[in-house]
Structures are given as C-alpha cells and as structure tokens.
C-alpha cells in the first residue's frame, strides 16, 4: 500500500476507523482538534456516529455507555481535558470496559500551555483516576507508529477489557509524516457481557463498578490485576537502539526519543558509545530490558530525557534498582530539549562531573 502524508492527529483518527471504531465522543481542546474534526467528517461515511459532547466529562461518560453497549469507541483530548476524564476513566476501568483514550499532551499544570510536553506520564501510568487500576499506555514516536498502536489498541482493549491510552504530544499530533495503514480488521470481539437488551433470551447484564461488599470488591480488583500480570508478560513493546555496546543508555519516549536518536550519532562520532532504550508501551514498562542493561559491565550510566520535570525517570530508577546511576535532563512547560543540551549532559557524565 502506498504511503500518504498525514498529520499525526488525523492518522490516529484514521487508524481508529480502520480498527472498526464507529463511535467517537469528544470535545475541542488544542492541540488535538483535528481528531474530532476528522471523526466528524469520516465516521458518518462508514455508518458511524460522531458526537461533540458538552464537556470532556460528558464525552468520557458517553464512551462508558457505548463501551458497555458493546461498541468500539474512542475519545481524545489534551492534558486539562484528560484531567476532567479521570473519574470516567476510573469508572470504565472498574466496570472492566474496553475503550481507547487519546491524550495529545500539552504543557501543564493548570491551563498551562499549548506546546508539546510529556508531563502527564504519572497521570497515565500511575493511576490518574482514583482506585487500584492500570491502563495500557502506548507512547508512539512517529506518525506511522501512532497509527500502528492506535489500530492495535481496540483489539487489545477488547481482549483485556480495559481502557487503553495513546499518549502522544502536541508535536506528534501536529507534524505530518508518511503513513500507511494495515488491512481493516473485520472481526470484532464477542462481548456476551454487553448491555444490549436481554431480549428474553439470557439473564440480565449489569455494567457496574460498585461493590458495596468489600470482600467482593477485593476479588474483582484481584482478578483485574491477574490480567495485568499477563499484560506485563505479553504486551511490552520497546525499542533497543544501539545498546549492545553502549556505555551510556538514554531512556526516552515519544518526541524526545527522536531528538535523542540524533544525539546518539553525534556522540558516537565523538567517541562516546551511546544507545537508547525507547519504551513504546510506558505501561507495561520494559523493566526487564532496563534490568538487563543495568547488569552489563560496559554500561556506565542511564540518562533519562523527558519533556517534564522528570516522571519516567522514577520508573527507570526502579528498574535499574541502584545498579548504575540514573541521570535526568529535560525541559518543561512546552519547551523541547535540544540535541546540544542532551550532548552536554552526556559529556558531563563522561567527564565525571556528575
């Protein structure tokens, strides 16, 4: 199939449609407005329904209803809107419903800014909403990868009965790159638990997250975490770039990893063997890959680079578990780290100044 030049946001929307998503509920917020606009134009053409909700809160609750009714459904927003959705996401997780949520991250906290950031990592992987639950979180770095993970996300959500998040950022959402899409998935997952009207032919179905009996609630959560354990075994996606002989390993995801990649060439030209571990799923986190390289003799240190004050760095530290030093550099508020900044940190590490 030949590639098309598409904006990241639009590629995500098209990928969702190719995956059989026929319902989208959203609300305008910069820098993801191309997603609802694309869905508004394209979903009716494939017999789907687009609805602009009155708020991000209403939108996520429409997603809950549609998901409970058995549909493949998506919403998208950006940081402040994702904060609004946290209650709804917790309910969707607690009711064990599948759906896809796209966060095109912008500077925060508060109204923040509209430039790209990675400061919603904690919110995405450490809860966000209340209670014991996880999301599967994909962090694509190119428009093609964004399309790939989005197209995969719906089947994954259906399989594991949980919300899946696509964690992008304003740069990825706005940039245009060549992309092609996989063949459209025609088989949807069976959902015998969905509320479709019992039709007199089966017992009634209830979609619910309330368990007033604490022992019952504990059992439900434990069963969810048994699924999460399977996900941690099977669904990790990570890129190891030039790590085999690396002395310094950069940990970066999304847009930041693209900048890091160019630094690696530069550093190797200067005689420093740098590699990169690039999580593509930030949950499940590629702990074992970090553990492996932390145990390698030639690895001197890890350098985490993020567009935040340092969030993923904590998970890197947990995985490295004290075996090697873990450093951090970044920018925040919508500012983007430069290759020069990253190279400077590498030189400091190598020069023993850290």
């Amino acid at each position, binding site marked *: 199939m030949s590639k098309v030049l598409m904006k990241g946001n639009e590629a995500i929307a098209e990928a969702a449609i190719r995956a059989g998503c026929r319902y989208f509920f959203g609300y305008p917020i910069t820098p993801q407005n191309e997603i609802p606009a694309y869905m508004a134009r394209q979903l009716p053409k494939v017999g789907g329904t687009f609805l602009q909700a009155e708020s991000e809160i209403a939108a996520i609750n*429409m997603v*809950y209803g549609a998901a409970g009714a058995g549909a493949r459904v998506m919403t998208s927003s950006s940081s402040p809107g994702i904060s609004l959705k946290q209650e709804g996401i917790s309910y969707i997780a607690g009711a064990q419903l599948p759906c896809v949520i796209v966060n095109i991250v912008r500077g925060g906290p508060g109204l923040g800014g509209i430039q790209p950031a990675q400061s919603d990592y904690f919110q995405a992987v450490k809860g966000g909403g209340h209670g014991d639950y996880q999301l599967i979180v994909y962090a694509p770095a190119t428009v093609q990868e964004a399309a790939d993970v989005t197209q995969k996300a719906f089947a994954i959500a259906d399989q594991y009965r949980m919300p899946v998040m696509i964690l992008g950022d304003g740069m990825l959402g706005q940039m245009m790159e060549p992309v092609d899409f996989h063949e459209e998935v025609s088989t949807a997952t069976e959902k015998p638990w969905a509320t479709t009207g019992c039709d007199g032919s089966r017992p009634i179905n209830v979609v619910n997250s309330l368990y007033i009996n604490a022992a019952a609630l504990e059992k439900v959560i434990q069963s969810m975490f048994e699924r999460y354990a399977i996900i941690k075994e099977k669904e990790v996606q990570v890129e190891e770039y030039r790590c085999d002989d690396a002395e310094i390993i950069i940990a970066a995801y999304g847009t930041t990893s693209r900048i890091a990649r160019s630094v690696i060439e530069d550093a190797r030209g200067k005689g420093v063997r740098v590699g990169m571990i690039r999580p593509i799923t930030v949950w499940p986190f590629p702990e074992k890959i970090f553990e492996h390289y932390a145990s390698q003799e030639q690895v001197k240190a890890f350098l985490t680079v993020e567009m935040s004050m340092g969030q993923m760095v904590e998970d890197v530290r947990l995985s490295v578990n004290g075996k090697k030093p873990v450093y951090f550099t970044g920018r925040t508020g919508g500012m983007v780290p430069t290759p020069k900044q990253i190279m400077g940190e590498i030189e400091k590490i190598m020069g023993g100044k850290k």
Partner: protein
Amino acid sequence: MSIVFEKTKGLTDKATHYCPGCTHGIVHRLVAESLEELEILDQAIGVASVGCSVFTYEYFNCDMQQAAHGRAPAVATGIKRVLPENIVFTYQGDGDLASIGVAEIIHAAARGENITVIFINNAIYGMTGGQMAPTTLLGQVTATSPFGRDQSIAGYPIKIAEMLATLDGAAFIERVSTHDVKSIRGAKKAIKRAFENQVQKKGFSLIEVLSTCPTNWGLSPAEAMIWLQDKMIPVYPLGIKKEAQ
C-alpha cells in the same frame, strides 16, 4: 380464584433497601409496570445513578449500567447512539440530576436524545444523610442548612421541569406527585407516556416525580405525604410543562 394483582416482571426479587414510607418503592413499581405493559422490558437498558437509588441495577429486571454521579444522561446517550432501537432510561435523584449532573441533563434534552428520564425530586440528599439539595425549599432545615435554607447564603431552589421545558430539544416534560392514590395514578400515566414516546421516537421525555424522604425530613411517612402536598407543590406545580407536537 383469579389473580387481580401481581408483582410486575419488571422488578427482580431482590428486596429493596429503602426506608419505610419512601416513595422510591412506588416509583420503581410504576416504571417497571410501564416497561412490562408496553412489552419493552426485554429491549430496555436502564442507567442507575448515585443516590438512594444507586442499587436500581439490582431492582429493575432489565440490562442495567451504573453511572457516575450526575452522568447518567451522558451514559444513556452513549448507549442510545449505539443501540437506537433499544429503550434507554435513566433514574435519577435531585442531587444527581439538578446539582452535579445539571450540564448532562440540559444537553441530553437540548440534543433531543430519544431517551426517558425519571427524575425523583424529594428536596433533599437522602443517601448521604440529609444534606441540602438544589431543590431544597427556602427555610427547609437540612444537614447543611441547619438554620433553614437562607436565600442570601444558598440561593433559591431550581425548577427543573420548567427549565428544561424551554429547550427545543425536549419533547415531553411533566411534573407529577406521589402523595396520594390520585397523584400516583397520574404519575403512572405520565411515566408510561414517557416510555411510549421513546417507542414512537418522539424524542426526549422527562418526568419529575415529587417524592418524600420521611427519614431526612424528620417526619413520619404519613406526615411526609402531607408535607409534600402542602409545601412542595406550591413551589413545584404539577402538570405538563412541554408537549411537542
């Protein structure tokens, strides 16, 4: 011996948890009977809200979804857009619908969602122990208006039926009561009509049902019926507020 009355198939066998004299029991029956009589129980999908009626997902004998506080109209919208031929209804109290959920109900009505909303107005928050509701009357003593609702601090009660009737998207809005046999019959008629409207795809129907909360009003069940009639109806007049052609 012939059967002259039996429990509706629209209710499960689960014993309800409501207080003695609570009109939730009556209204649940009216809703369930309407679904059964219209032969739509098998196509029905109800959305439970948060309040004393949080457990309606155990009481109504049809597919049910539990919604977050105030969000039932949005959840119902999601369901109805996926399954337009099913009968989708919400059952909400005054905190759920008139306080936290006021945006969701207005916009579901404005969009003309073809759903049925049963709105229980008992002028107080029951489940959480008797706090002030947006529908609490001026001067009414509650856990959070212990000196009586004072308009200079806490403003005025909201008249949902009249307010939603201003929306073009609303097809049928009626306020009914449950304080005596005659009003209960009227409530049944209105509720059944609100479901019939959905079957006939007439659009958004909401029935505001004036209800009692003897426990939190500090009255006996019988006194509570009288209080509803004497105090609530003057503030919340009964009748059809909107009837689209």
